[in-house]
C-alpha cells in the first residue's frame, strides 16, 4: 500500500491496465510526452512507448470516434478528453455510435472503450473548463457513467471501466486530483461499476452525493454529528446505472434524503433519484426530498465560482429543513 492522490491512483491504474493487457491503448491531447495537462499519464509513454500512449491531433470528434472504431476492431482504447467543456463534439460519437454498436449489430460488434474526462469546478480554471454535465451523458442508453470520489475508488473503478466490455465514460473530479491522499494498493483489483458506496452509517437522514461534492458532504456530516444528527452518507460512484437499491434501503431506514450535486439543478440526476424514491419509498418518507445543487446558470468565471458551488452550509441548511419538517 502506498499513499496516493487521485491523480496518482489514476496514473497507477492506467499503467496497470497497459501492463496487463496488450490491447489497451491510451490516446488524447497531450497525453504523451507532456503526461496530460493534469499529469494523469505522466511517465506512461516512457514505459509503454509512443504506439500505446499516443498524442492525437487536436480533434475531439476523432478522439471519440477513433476509439469506437479501434474498440470494435479489438483494441481497448482509453481516450482522454482534456476538459469536460470540450466533450460536446464527442457526444455525437458516444450517443450515435459507442452506445449503440452492440445493440444495432445484435452483439456482432461491440465497443469496449473508456472516455476519460476531468469535470467540475473549484480550481479557478478558465471558462469552459469547469462544467458538470454528467446528467447529459447518463441520459444516453447504452453507456455507463462513473465518477470516483477517492483515490482508491478511482483506481478500482478505472480498472473496471477499462475491463468492461461496453463503453464507459469515466469522469474525474479534478478538484480532488490532489486534494486528498490515502493508501492504495496496486493489486489490479477492480471495483464493481453500478454499486454505490455506503461511506458512513446513520439513522437520521440519507445524504447522496458523488465526485468532488463528497468533500462538502463529508464535512457536513461531521458538523451534523456534532449537533447530534447522524447522517448516512452514500457515494453514488456510478451515475449510470444508478444503484437504486442502496439508496432506497437507506431512505427506508432514515426516512429523509438530501441529494447533493455540483451540476445544475434542473433535470440533474438528483431529480432521477428523487423520483425513484417518491415511487418506491413514499411510505417511509418523513419529509420532502431536498436537492442541493448547482444553480441553473452558466458556470461563472473563477471570481464568482465559489458562489456557484454547493457549500457545506447549504447542505446543512437543507438537512435542517428536512429534520424540522412536520
Amino acid at each position, binding site marked *: 500500500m502506498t499513499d496516493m492522490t487521485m491523480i496518482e491512483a489514476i496514473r497507477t491504474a492506467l499503467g496497470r491496465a497497459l501492463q496487463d493487457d496488450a490491447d489497451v*491503448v491510451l490516446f488524447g491531447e497531450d497525453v504523451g510526452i507532456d503526461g496530460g495537462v493534469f499529469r494523469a499519464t505522466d511517465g506512461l509513454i516512457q514505459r509503454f512507448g509512443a*504506439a*500505446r500512449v*499516443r498524442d*492525437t*491531433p487536436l*480533434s475531439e*470528434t*476523432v478522439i*471519440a*470516434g*477513433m*476509439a*469506437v*472504431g*479501434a*474498440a*470494435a*476492431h*479489438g*483494441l481497448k*482504447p482509453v481516450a482522454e478528453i482534456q476538459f469536460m467543456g470540450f466533450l460536446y*463534439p464527442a457526444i*455525437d*460519437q458516444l450517443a*450515435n*455510435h459507442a452506445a449503440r454498436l*452492440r*445493440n*444495432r*449489430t*445484435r*452483439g*456482432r*460488434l*461491440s465497443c469496449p472503450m473508456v472516455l476519460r474526462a476531468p469535470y467540475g469546478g473549484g480550481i479557478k480554471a478558465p471558462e469552459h473548463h469547469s462544467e458538470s454535465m454528467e446528467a447529459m451523458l447518463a441520459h444516453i*442508453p*447504452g453507456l*455507463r457513467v462513473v465518477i470516483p470520489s477517492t483515490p482508491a475508488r478511482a483506481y478500482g473503478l478505472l480498472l473496471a471501466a477499462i475491463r468492461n*466490455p*461496453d463503453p464507459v465514460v469515466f469522469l474525474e473530479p479534478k478538484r480532488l486530483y490532489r486534494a486528498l491522499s490515502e493508501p492504495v494498493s496496486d493489486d489490479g483489483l477492480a471495483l464493481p461499476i*453500478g454499486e454505490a458506496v455506503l461511506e458512513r452509517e446513520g439513522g437520521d437522514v440519507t445524504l447522496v452525493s458523488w465526485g468532488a461534492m463528497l468533500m462538502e458532504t463529508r464535512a457536513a456530516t461531521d458538523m451534523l454529528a456534532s449537533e447530534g444528527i447522524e447522517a448516512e452518507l452514500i457515494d453514488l460512484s456510478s451515475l*449510470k*446505472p*444508478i444503484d*437504486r*437499491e442502496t439508496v432506497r434501503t437507506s431512505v427506508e431506514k432514515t426516512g429523509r434524503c438530501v441529494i447533493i450535486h455540483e451540476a445544475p439543478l434542473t433535470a440533474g440526476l438528483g431529480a432521477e433519484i428523487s423520483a425513484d424514491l417518491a415511487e418506491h419509498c413514499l411510505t417511509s418518507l418523513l419529509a420532502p426530498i431536498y436537492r442541493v445543487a448547482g444553480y441553473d446558470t452558466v458556470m461563472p468565471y473563477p471570481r464568482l465560482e465559489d458562489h456557484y458551488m454547493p457549500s457545506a452550509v447549504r447542505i446543512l441548511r437543507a438537512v435542517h429543513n428536512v429534520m424540522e419538517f412536520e
Partner: protein
Amino acid sequence: MSDPLAFLDADGRRLRDLPDFASDGETLKALYAAMVRTRSFDTKAISLQRTGRLGTYASSLGQEAISVGVVGAMQDADVFLPSFREHGGQLWRGVTLEELFLYWGGDERGNDFAGPRQDFPVCIPVASQFPHAAGVALAMQQKGERGVAVAVGGDGATSKGDFYESLNVVGTWQLPAVFVINNNEWAISVPRKEQTRARRLADKAVAAGIPGEQVDGNDVIAVREATTRALSRARAGKGGTLIECLSYRLGDHTTADDASRYRDEAEVSLHWKREPLTRLRNHLVEAHGWSKENEEALLRSCGDEIDAAAEAYLATEAESPGAMFAHLYASPPREISAQAEEFGDD
C-alpha cells in the same frame, strides 16, 4: 490538373490500355453481374417500400460502379465502413440480400452479418463513419494486421468536420485507410457546387498531406484500379488515400424524397447517358462475347434470387420485443433488467 482516371467512355470505348485485371473477361463479368444484382435489389427495395413492405430506403441507382469497384479491390481481412448508399459493396462483401432487406425493413438483425463479421453496418449520421475507419486502421496498425479500413461517404460528407478531422489523423499517423467519396452531385437538395468552392473534392486530401485522386465513378474499372493502388500503398505502410468518384444520383435521395422539387429532369436524362452499366455491357459485348442470352440469364437469375430473398424477409417474424433490452449491454444493469421485467416479454 489531371483528368479523372477513366478507362471506358460512356459508350464503353477504351480510352487507354486497360489494367491487368480488366483483361480477364471473367473478372469483368463478375463486376458487371454485381452491378446488375445491386440495381435489381434497388428496384425491388423501392417497390417493396412503395407497397408498404419496407422502410425508408436510399437508392444507389447510377452509383453501382463505385461500391462494386471499391470492394472488388478489397481483401477479406480489410474492413468496409459504408454510408447508407453502398448496397453493392455490402453485397459483394458477403452481406446477404435478406440481411439488407431486414435492415431496411427495420430489423436490427440485418446488421448481424453472417458474412463479413468485422465490417461495419451502414452509417446514417453523415461522415461519422470516417473516425471509425481511422480507429479500425489504428487497431490494424497496432496489431500488425495487413488489413486496410475502407470508408465510403457522399459529397455532402466532405463538408463535415468528422471527414476533415479523420483525414487529418490518417495522414498524421500514416494509417492504413482509404476514404472514398461517392460524389453523386447531390446532398438531398443541395448540389455539389453549393456544397463547397473546392474545385475537386479530391483536393481536400492536400490539407491532410495524403494523395487525393479523382476517378470516373461510373467506370468500374477505374474505381477498382484506383482502389487497388490505394490499398497497396496502405498495405505497404505508406498511409491513406482519398478517392473521389464522380457519379450522379439518378434516383431520389431516399424513398421519402421527391427530387423533382429541386432539379431538372433534363439534367437527370443527361446523366442517364453516362450511367455505369451500359458502358461495361458494351465493352463485354465487344471484347468478351457477352450475348443477349447471357444478359437475359443474368437478369433472370438476379430477379429470382432477389424475389426469393424478399419472400424470406417478408416471412421473417419480428424479433421478440424483449430484444430491445437484450442487446444493449453484454451484462444488462439492474435498471435494464427491471424495465425488461416490467415490460413482461416472454
